[in-house]
């Protein structure tokens, strides 16, 4: 049932909004990720603050129709700074019955649903689990439903390009994008130039997509189905040049920057795994910076080659997700024993085992901390937002090189694929990392080289790379004697070395800033403490609770091992500490064990970011009890 259209003589009124949340949902082959990405770029170009949440099935081309194959992309854009991709969408674009059914439950009453009626056949309805057509009964009464034959109108609009019906229909996502772009008065130039470039080699597809996009816009302009359009003004943001960036891209750029800032060649050894593979793809394009990427035969070879490269004087890096960390554990232990720099990146996903490859989770913290045999302390860092992945990558490299140690950097699926506007840093302001290789000893009378003699300040051992005369030495997994590095089975030496390796990691705390705490009231008695990608949800929830007059402080950790030196005092400074995590309480466990502070966990393991409203409610309960 296509909406009737006719030329509209007057421009439609424009309603100002402070923020909006739009979700595009369809089958995994419908191009929803691309549609969301373009809509995001338009919001960025307009100067909105924004946050995105792509959510897609693990299957490449999931079967059409049933719920598990639904792919979606949510964009939250605003005229003020925001922290999350938002909870309930204001507008849902559903390309078929399954996309409608999978998403409608998350809408608040009054939300707008733009639905492509073309695929509402009996068979598709049944596949999606509908017994009756929801567009024909009253089940969607509380929403504003706009049924549109997107597919049919797209096919009509692009008829002149002579595409097959199937290819013509594929442009329907651009029709939908054009329509929503009109609704929010988005700038269209970036999308049109993007389409020109993307399909430059297939002119008929290029023209069909551009035509569908424009047809969607014009449809909004002329149809009676939309009485108003909306306007979300640019957000005031600190001065600077911005771009939109995803976590994986920022992380890859951070690693390139670490190579440039240390003067070291970067060697990435990696095995493809969701959601980390994009870092391998990105780094493989940056050979001009001296970045070598090695796609290994397995996870173990990936980290093995990286560690070999580190021994040889490169900045060794390996990227993976939780299952890959499990496989790399033994080599991380070898890096601990050999005391070589190594950056190990875990883009966390739902677990255990294969778990939920495309969903987000923070359940690898304890694996990062303790997932090795023996006493094998490893510094652990976590990024808190897509843009922050850049800085965290540099910080991981700084610690690895300065302290001659493997460093575990935790990101997750949400940060990896989610994006935000990122103020582009000035290269001159980036930290410089000094590899400080051990100097050659060519004087025959020089005392023998001590490969395990420690720097008094950092407790790090020398990084003596092959090719340096006079420093020939052997490293390995067997316990080493203090200073000489010879194999040692001596009990007292083992005790000394175990403690020395721990002391070295503890020493890192001297080089990191105090805990980041924000308390506008200055008198809060409740602290909400988080780590990693929950920063956005926690910030939004804390802000919402504060707007209701409650006094709540917020802290967020980048360094999880060692913790900032003042963390114990910070925790003891509040009556109550709430720790929200996308796991069953892993940071809580560490804080309780280390500081004997009875923190309260807020734990959710659904494969999704924390729901801001739910978290705000939990904070309110804790704050009001106090």
């Amino acid at each position, binding site marked *: 049932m296509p909406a009737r259209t006719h030329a509209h003589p007057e421009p439609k009124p424009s309603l100002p909004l402070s923020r909006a949340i739009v979700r595009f949902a369809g089958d995994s082959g419908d191009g929803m990720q691309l549609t969301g990405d373009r809509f995001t770029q338009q919001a960025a*170009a307009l*100067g909105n603050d924004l946050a995105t949440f792509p959510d897609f099935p693990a299957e490449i081309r999931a079967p059409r129709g049933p719920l598990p194959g639904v792919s979606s992309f949510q964009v939250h854009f605003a005229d003020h700074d925001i922290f999350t991709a938002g909870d309930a969408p204001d507008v849902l674009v559903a390309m078929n019955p399954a996309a409608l059914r999978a998403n409608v439950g998350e809408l608040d009453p009054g939300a707008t649903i733009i639905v492509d009626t073309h695929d509402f056949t009996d068979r598709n309805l049944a596949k999606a689990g509908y017994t009756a057509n929801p567009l024909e009964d009253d089940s969607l009464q509380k929403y504003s439903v706009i049924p549109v034959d997107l597919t049919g109108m797209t096919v009509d609009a692009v008829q002149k390009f002579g595409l097959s019906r199937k290819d013509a229909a594929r442009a329907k996502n651009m029709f939908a994008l054009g329509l929503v772009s009109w609704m929010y008065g988005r700038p269209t130039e*970036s999308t049109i130039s993007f389409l020109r470039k993307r399909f430059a080699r297939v002119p008929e597809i290029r023209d069909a997509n551009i035509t569908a996009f424009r047809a969607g816009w014009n449809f909004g302009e002329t149809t009676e189905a939309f009485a108003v359009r909306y306007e979300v003004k640019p957000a005031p*943001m*600190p*001065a*600077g*040049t*911005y*771009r*939109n*960036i995803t976590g994986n891209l920022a992380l890859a*750029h951070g690693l*390139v*920057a670490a190579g*440039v800032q240390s003067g070291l*060649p970067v*060697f990435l*050894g990696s095995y493809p795994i969701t959601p980390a593979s994009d870092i391998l793809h990105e780094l493989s394009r*940056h*050979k*001009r*910076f*001296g*970045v*070598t990427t*090695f796609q*290994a*035969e397995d996870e*173990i*070879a990936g980290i*093995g*080659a*990286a*560690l*070999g*490269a580190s021994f*040889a*004087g490169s900045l*060794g890096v390996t990227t993976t997700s939780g299952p890959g960390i499990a496989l790399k554990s033994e*080599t991380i*232990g*070898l890096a601990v024993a050999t005391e070589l720099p190594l950056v190990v990146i875990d883009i966390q996903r739902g677990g255990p085992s294969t778990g939920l490859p495309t969903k987000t989770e923070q359940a690898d913290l304890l694996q990062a901390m303790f997932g090795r045999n023996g006493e094998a302390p490893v510094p652990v860092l976590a990024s808190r937002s897509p843009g922050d992945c*850049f800085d965290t990558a540099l910080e991981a490299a700084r610690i690895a090189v300065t302290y001659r140690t493997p460093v575990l950097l935790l990101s997750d699926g949400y940060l990896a694929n989610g994006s935000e506007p990122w103020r*582009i840093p*000035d*290269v001159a302001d980036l930290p410089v990392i000094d590899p400080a290789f051990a100097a050659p000893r060519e004087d025959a009378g020089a005392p023998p080289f001590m490969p395990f003699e420690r720097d008094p300040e950092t407790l790090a051992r020398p990084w003596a790379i*092959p*090719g*340096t*005369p006079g*420093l*020939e*030495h*052997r*490293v*390995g*997994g067997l316990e080493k004697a203090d200073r000489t590095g*010879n*194999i040692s089975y001596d009990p007292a030496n083992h005790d000394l070395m175990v403690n020395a390796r721990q002391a070295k990691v503890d020493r890192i705390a001297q080089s990191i800033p105090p805990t980041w705490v924000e308390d506008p009231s200055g008198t809060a008695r409740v602290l909400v403490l988080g780590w990693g990608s929950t920063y956005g949800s926690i910030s939004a929830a804390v802000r919402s609770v504060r707007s209701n007059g409650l006094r709540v402080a917020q802290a967020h950790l980048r360094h999880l091992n060692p913790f900032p030196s003042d963390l114990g005092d910070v925790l003891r400074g509040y009556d109550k500490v709430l720790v929200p995590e996308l796991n069953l309480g892993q940071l809580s466990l560490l804080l309780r064990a280390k500081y004997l502070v009875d923190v309260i966990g807020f734990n959710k393991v659904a494969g999704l970011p924390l729901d801001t409203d739910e978290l705000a409610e939990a904070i309110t309960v804790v704050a009001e009890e106090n």
Partner: protein
Amino acid sequence: MTTTDLGFPGLAGVPAATGKLTAKDFASDQEVRWCPGCGDYAILKAVQSFLPELGLRRENMVFVSGIGCSSRFPYYLDTYGMHSIHGRAPAIATGIATARPDLSVWVVTGDGDSLSIGGNHLIHALRRNVNLTILLFNNRIYGLTKGQYSPTSETGKVTKSTPMGSLETPFNPVSLALGAEATFVARTIDSDRKHLTAALRAAAAHRGTALVEIYQNCPVFNDGAFDAVKNPGTRDDAIIPLEHGRPIRFGSDQQYGVVRTGTGVEIVEDPADEDVLVHDAHAADPATAFAISRLTDAGVLHRAPIGIFRQVQRPTYDDMAREQLAAAAAETSDRREALAGLIAGSDTWTIL
């Protein structure tokens, strides 16, 4: 810094020594701790004696090993070294060799280390043809864990973990390597210093992954496994010597010869001269080398070809990886400036 051109193309780019070194220069100060009579001693001695011949600086040599008796090897050489973890030495060495063209990189491994726990890394190193020399000490038993059967132990082998005999078919390391697209595969024997040294020399000269299987006696857990090819009384009839360009004849009176059959090769007594296969280690197709490798007994060893099975040229992974890097770097003169461009991307907006 001089680089070497000492007849070892595999080491091109590795700086040459300024003075002459001796075997003693390559001995570290660590006490050697293998069992008395272990074949590893003979290999260590041969390697220490051979290394000076390469004419390289000690600091530009790296020995990487995994876990097992043989993997103690790097501790006894005064070069750079890493005694890593079980089975992973080829992966670690791949990183070292790819990162540094100026290093001569060696892997020392055993039959358990390289064919069992590390099988994956071995075949992929061979396939990639990374510039490494891999010495595979094959004693057909697990020594360090005290006597379990290995992936090269013969079927029926009675060991601590197979009291009623092993049920498994062993690997033939040479056949395996040839199947894994290896460009250089040789086999030699620990106690034959001359042959072992010649194999090392050819392997070091090869640019790409060179695999040298070394039959190595374990006097404690598998003593006598290679008696047939070592004992003066039997070895002439047991060893099939391979020399490139030479007819493959052997036996105390040269009475045996290797001849072609329909699809492979076989051993014939008193063959006509014109029927005897002339060994071609440089053949592009590894099929004949593979057929020759199958003349090795799979069970108790009575007969085995030794020498270089295959030696062909193929571009190496690490050379090509560095070429890509160099080609890409040629476009970038100032990395900081390029970094600024990279992180800015193409879609930016400015807020004043």
